[in-house]
């Protein structure tokens, strides 16, 4: 075991915090929650007004920014182009502009790469498009929580999207970068979902870095939440009407359905990754067969463009 650890460490060129397998230098899940709550207490969650009942949300995950940002630049270019109706995205046509985009964690590969990623985010934000992040394990280990927090302030939060007809969609972002929510965040999530169900949102979408299921070997060596927590969350999502759980971490797209909740995992956006891509959620797209949520995987790597516009219902 020790030999395997040493080999991994030697091969990882400082990108993998192997000691973190046994001892993490970063704050634990409950500590991160408490620090984030201090921010959330004085900063109300965002409410975004869109100009139509249907809109799009761009999702990326596992960017693993290191020394290049080729795929990230492509992603941001597509988002910015789509955000301005006059500059239509060639694949999408015009439904509604994309009001914001999301990153499901693993923004950076290891220490020292946040500034490069942030330089690209600033260019995006200058156009008025907001980006919301949930932390991944690579963003936290090597004691990087403080740096993550300096840019994104909080590990868990909600975003409400309000349509012209007054309907509201709720996006919940949770921190699973330690493969557990911890006690405090679990309580927060239960309360949030309870209130969300009472508020009768049109759609409730949960966003997480760590994925829930291991149905095949496509996720490689990436790990999940403990089973107790997996079952508890699956039950909560089912009870409180969560429609879709957006996941990263596995680097490979996947769709599972359990207890009437859909779990969609999206491709990594990492440079030099063969199947690199991102995902566009279409909320109530009138062009789709149903009025729910549909999604589209958009490849940016060297593979063939395919798998376009599969409905999830």
């Amino acid at each position, binding site marked *: 075991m020790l030999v395997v650890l040493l080999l991994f460490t030697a091969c990882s060129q400082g990108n993998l*915090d192997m000691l973190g397998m046994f001892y993490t230098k970063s704050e634990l899940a409950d500590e991160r929650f408490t620090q984030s709550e201090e921010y959330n207490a004085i900063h109300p969650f965002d409410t975004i007004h869109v100009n139509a009942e249907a809109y799009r949300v761009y999702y990326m995950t596992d960017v693993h920014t290191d020394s290049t940002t080729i795929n990230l630049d492509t992603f941001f270019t597509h988002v910015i182009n789509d955000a301005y109706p006059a500059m239509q995205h060639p694949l999408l046509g015009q439904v509604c502009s994309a009001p914001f985009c999301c990153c499901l964690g693993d923004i950076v590969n290891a220490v020292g790469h946040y500034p490069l990623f942030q330089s690209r985010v600033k260019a995006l934000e200058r156009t008025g498009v907001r980006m919301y992040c949930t932390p991944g*394990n690579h963003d936290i*280990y090597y004691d990087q929580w403080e740096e993550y927090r300096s840019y994104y302030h909080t590990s868990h939060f909600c975003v409400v999207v309000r349509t012209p007809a007054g309907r509201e969609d709720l996006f919940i972002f949770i921190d699973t970068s330690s*493969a557990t929510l911890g006690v405090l965040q679990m309580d927060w999530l239960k309360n949030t979902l309870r209130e969300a169900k009472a508020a009768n949102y049109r759609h409730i979408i949960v966003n997480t870095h760590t994925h829930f299921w*291991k149905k095949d070997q496509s996720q490689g060596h990436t790990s999940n939440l403990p089973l107790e927590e997996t079952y*508890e969350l699956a039950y909560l999502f089912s009870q409180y009407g969560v429609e879709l759980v957006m996941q990263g971490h596995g680097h490979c797209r996947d769709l599972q359905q*359990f*207890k009437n909740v859909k779990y969609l995992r999206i491709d990594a956006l990492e440079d030099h990754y063969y199947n690199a891509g991102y995902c566009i959620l279409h909320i109530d797209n009138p062009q789709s067969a149903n009025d729910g949520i549909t999604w589209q995987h958009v490849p940016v790597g060297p593979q063939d463009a395919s798998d376009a516009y599969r409905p999830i219902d």
Partner: protein
Amino acid sequence: MYYKIVLRKFVILLALTAAIATYAAPPTKTKPGNQPYSLTLLAEYGYNKTWLHYGGAQIKAFLPVNEHVEITLIAEGLSSNVYSAGLNVRPKMALPIGELFFDATVHYSAIQRTRIHDAITATSIGYRMDYVSAQVGCFYRTMASYDRAWHSEEEYLCEPFNFLYRIAANVRPLCSRWNIYMGFANFNETQFERPWQPLFFLGGYYDFAPSSNFEYTYRAASHFRLLFEATCKPTGMFHLNANFYGATAKFGFAYKF
């Protein structure tokens, strides 16, 4: 922070014990003769970040068919509203040094608190010596909602071909009257985790000594074995961002017929 220090020391101790025992111990026969039937009762206390504090009871029947086949039945109930039962069949074969065994397990958990069925079928192969044992195999998990209608794929998930492993080290030979063991695995008698969710365990047992000089009551006591096992379950180890998640402690006795 304290548990991290304890965990780190535990892992170092485990590695050192296994290494020393493997290379320094003379080869001896692992377990002489047939094992007697036994019935084990265990009380359990546990804590994890999802269920918080809980208690439970476990009953286990060990039923060796002959010196080549062992059968174990186990049932457990937890105050966290989780109930499970399992059957384990273990054909085994004595080798000049140590013992080779095959293991077939079916295990079912009714996770009443979240209305989920969890069923496991596992097969593995293992080898045990006086001081160390290792077991590898795979298991197939089926998860289904209580509210599932027949053939409703929306309520049903399976996770095939999960890797299964267990490595343990004893401080004394297996046939000793008392022993302390420790190790790590991604499963135990009542739970099967994904491969990257290891459980670290430390346990021991003590057999009351049989003696012809004892009075009847003391000879009766010689049928008893005291048992203890503690398990620690960190999470996020393969996230390279380990956090404490849960721990259990079991204490009880076995009656050997």
